[in-house]
């Protein structure tokens, strides 16, 4: 009797396409056949896409056990782990790209995490929700309430997002750490991407999400 195990793990969406705009853009940035570590890889959609379409040797770290089990059951190399505590075990320059998408805000020590990303990888790619976006500012200014951002729509008291930042804030952190911003993009609500020439006020207002490509100087 054939046993079908596929029903026990959640399906990974999109084998040939990615459902998230930031992941599409990041996938384009990653070279064919490179070594990639996806920190906070969720259900492994990006790793799966990169493996199938770009011949990438991909690894993932994911906090949620359900996410990890789904990834491994789909043949992806993923470990259960925490960006705050587990990155220190990786050697320098182990990967061509280390990716951190929509995860930085949930780490306890983002500064430390970003330092590890550029140490472990020749390039670090970081995407995050921009808290300097005009919609967020208006909500705060006129609503007088903490803006609810992120996929889970959690309230301030139960959100895992504890270190929120703006494009301006993140640029400052990169400067402080002495990192080179190789590329920076802002994404509008509709998903159109725009190169950031600098972390100017306009970008910090218009961009709903940002993607930074960093290297050690």
């Amino acid at each position, binding site marked *: 009797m054939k046993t079908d195990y596929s029903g026990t793990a959640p399906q990974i969406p999109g084998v040939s396409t990615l459902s998230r705009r930031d992941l599409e853009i990041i996938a384009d940035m990653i070279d064919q056949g490179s070594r990639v570590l996806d920190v906070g890889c969720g259900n492994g959609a990006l790793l799966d896409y990169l493996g199938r379409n770009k011949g990438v040797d991909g690894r993932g770290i994911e906090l949620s056990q359900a996410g990890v089990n789904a*990834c491994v059951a789909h043949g*992806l190399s993923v470990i259960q782990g925490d960006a705050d505590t587990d990155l220190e075990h990786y050697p320098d320059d182990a990967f061509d790209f280390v990716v951190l998408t929509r995860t930085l805000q949930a780490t306890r020590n983002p500064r430390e995490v970003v330092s590890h990303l550029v140490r472990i990888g020749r390039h670090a790619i970081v995407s995050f929700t921009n808290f300097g976006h005009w919609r967020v500012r208006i909500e705060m200014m006129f609503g007088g309430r903490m803006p609810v951002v992120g996929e889970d729509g959690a309230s301030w008291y139960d959100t895992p997002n504890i270190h929120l930042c703006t494009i301006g804030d993140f640029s400052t952190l990169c400067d402080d750490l002495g990192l080179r911003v190789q590329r920076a993009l802002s994404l509008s609500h509709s998903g159109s991407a725009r190169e950031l020439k600098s972390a100017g006020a306009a970008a910090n207002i218009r961009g709903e999400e940002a993607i930074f490509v960093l290297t050690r100087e």
Partner: protein
Amino acid sequence: MTVTRDLSPVSGGDNAALPGLQVELARDEPMRLDSGQSIGPFTAAYTTCGDLNSDKSNAVLVCHALTGDQYVLENNPVTGKPGWWELMVGPGKPLDTDRYFIICVNVLGGCLGSTGPRDINSDTGELWGLDFPVITIGDMVRAQALLLDHMGIDQLFCVIGGSMGAMQVLEWASKYSERVFSAVPIAGAARHSAQNIAFHEVGRQAIMADPDWRKGNYLREGVNPKGGLSVARMAAHITYLSETALHRKFGRRLQARDAISFGFDADFQVESYLRHQGSTFVERFDANSYLYITRAMDYFDLAAEHDGVLAGAFEGTTVRFCIISFNSDWLFPTEESREVVRALNAVAANVSFVEIDTDKGHDAFLLEEPEFYATVSGFLEGAAEHRGLTAK
């Protein structure tokens, strides 16, 4: 080698009557052991299922646990029960016998066909008994490697096993990394903990305290330290379960009586269960083998020969690893697996790590745990794709 005995490992009989395959290894040159002694020739008893493909790239070595054997799928000839891992191995199972060629060998020092302390030392014509050399996990794996040489298999697609099997998997991946494409150590550790050595010592002392043990010479004297071995098994069996599982299974329920007896009968179901575990175990296992194999586990410490740095055991490895642990396993807790994962990360190895949520304790790797089998299935699928093994 002519040893006469029946199928039961605890009385006289004939190895040749055992189902499965047997081969004499280390015939030309004795095999060097970690202790400095040598052994050879010796017998390796094993079973295979599935077909080896033309380029011999689909072989999977299953490493059995302390009291396991080579009957991974086919019925055990001693107990008559189905193979010990029939949930994992078979047509359409994660270790799909329609796709992979499965090999399982009784470990060196074992008591179901492979040479061990209850066999005749061909040099002296006497039973080995305690003259059998102390063996290690490394020696067991070295013997398995000789078997693969004999079978003409250069590289295993996968080496997989739970508990002591996981120790062998890690040893394989460390010492013979070029002969291993993927490795799945389940509910294991890179070294035996002080607590686990302590439990083993209790078991060994129980055996040695049995007057019928006769300083290991019981076979020669026609007796069997069943009481001691049975207590060893009972104590060990508790460590394979969890408090939750024991409680769920037995609670404080009484065994075939309405009230406590104010005596030392097996009043409680859990007592009766343990006694049964003990008494059936002694029918299929040799007491001296139990001493030797528990010792091999105690001596296992993969980091030791790398100045205590476990990562050193995996330097430059190309093996794809899938480490699996169970959250209610207190014998080989998840933290032990995590330590292996950290060491593998330190050398940027290709590693997956899954902790399965279950209340079944250490034995969970032998039991119905759908997520566990889905993990192994998915991992092997991915590895097979990378190895170029196409689905049938």
